């Protein structure tokens, strides 16, 4: 290598520290994650430029790494939610989600995504059965698969899988326990206390 080539190789420069983070977040390849208070206690919430990617009560995931590992997403810690998204989440937790509530279901299998989208149409204060969702998907034999799909709902509370109960009216399973599911339905006026 000649002197001039050596001098040119010394022109190598380090990028700004936040360039990698900004690129991954802007592309949507990595989420941002933070904690936020809610009527149901503190929550982990992660989001992409498209919308919310995952939610979990803090009691169910002790650390951010555990939370994100559960959802197989990489993420960067953020100080707080963006203001617009925080408002939308607050309203959704209080009044139920609306069709334009931003969620990011990329990477989720087509059937589960369809189950979650159908579930998100169940209005606050009402319950539906697993069979109702299967019927909505024109797949009445898929009741058990609907249960499995809801059991892996990455955005509980906001996609209200707690509003899906057994056809006999019993409360059924819930990722955070049947007591929480019961309390949620009572708080929404779908069940008597």
């Amino acid at each position, binding site marked *: 290598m000649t002197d*001039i080539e050596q001098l*040119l190789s010394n022109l190598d*420069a380090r*990028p700004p520290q936040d*360039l*990698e983070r900004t*690129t991954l977040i802007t*592309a949507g390849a990595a989420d941002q994650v933070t904690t936020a208070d809610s009527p149901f206690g503190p929550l982990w919430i992660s989001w992409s430029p498209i919308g919310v990617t995952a939610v979990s009560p803090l009691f169910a995931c002790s650390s951010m790494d555990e939370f994100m*590992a559960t959802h197989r997403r990489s993420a960067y810690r953020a100080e707080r939610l963006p203001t617009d998204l925080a408002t939308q989440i607050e309203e959704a937790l209080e009044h139920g989600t609306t069709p334009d509530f931003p969620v990011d279901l990329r990477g989720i299998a087509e059937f589960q995504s369809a189950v979650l989208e159908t579930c998100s149409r169940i209005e606050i204060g009402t319950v539906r059965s697993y069979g109702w969702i299967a019927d909505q998907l024109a797949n009445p034999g898929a009741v058990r698969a609907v249960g499995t799909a809801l059991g892996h709902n990455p955005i509980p509370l906001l996609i209200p899988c707690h509003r899906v109960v057994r056809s006999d009216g019993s409360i059924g399973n819930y990722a955070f326990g049947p007591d929480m599911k019961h309390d949620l339905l009572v708080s929404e006026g779908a069940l008597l206390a």
Partner: protein
Amino acid sequence: MDTMTIPRKTDVRDTLVSDLDDGFTVLVRTYQPGIYSGALRLTRSREDAQEVAQDTFLRAYTALGKYDDERIRNLQIRPWLWTIAVNLCRTRAKRARPTRPLPPDEILGGEPDEHFDDSAWSRRLGALSNPQRTAVILRHVADLPVNEIAEITGRPVGTTKTDISRGLAQLRTIVHEEETT
């Protein structure tokens, strides 16, 4: 670092096929520093270099999301990314924004060197023709092989070698004249 550990695989293309986001993260960590470094010399602006280094990967991510597995497996990743980057640098050059020498605080990549005068390098590289400057920077700053540079710039390998050797010769002359005046 707040990110999860990304599993290491032998070929980033395998990772891209199995999980686009994991593969893309590897791609950014592997190639973005070099592309920033080269773009900084090609654009002579830190702001432009940051934009180029980010936009290159945003465009790559969008494209990869549309490619099927076979196309991803056949991708020559580094020249593909650099082709996007060089085109973005060219686009910025056409905006006729006056370039400015990089100030000393933008001299990065190790301890300050008494032989390292950044504004001087902006001027020296600016004296080369566009093909020579691009070829020299890709070869000796970004450390790319000649055949990849030819692919990126769309010029024959022989012409690329000539661009590099003539560019280096001109730089030697410029440096020599600086030392003797």
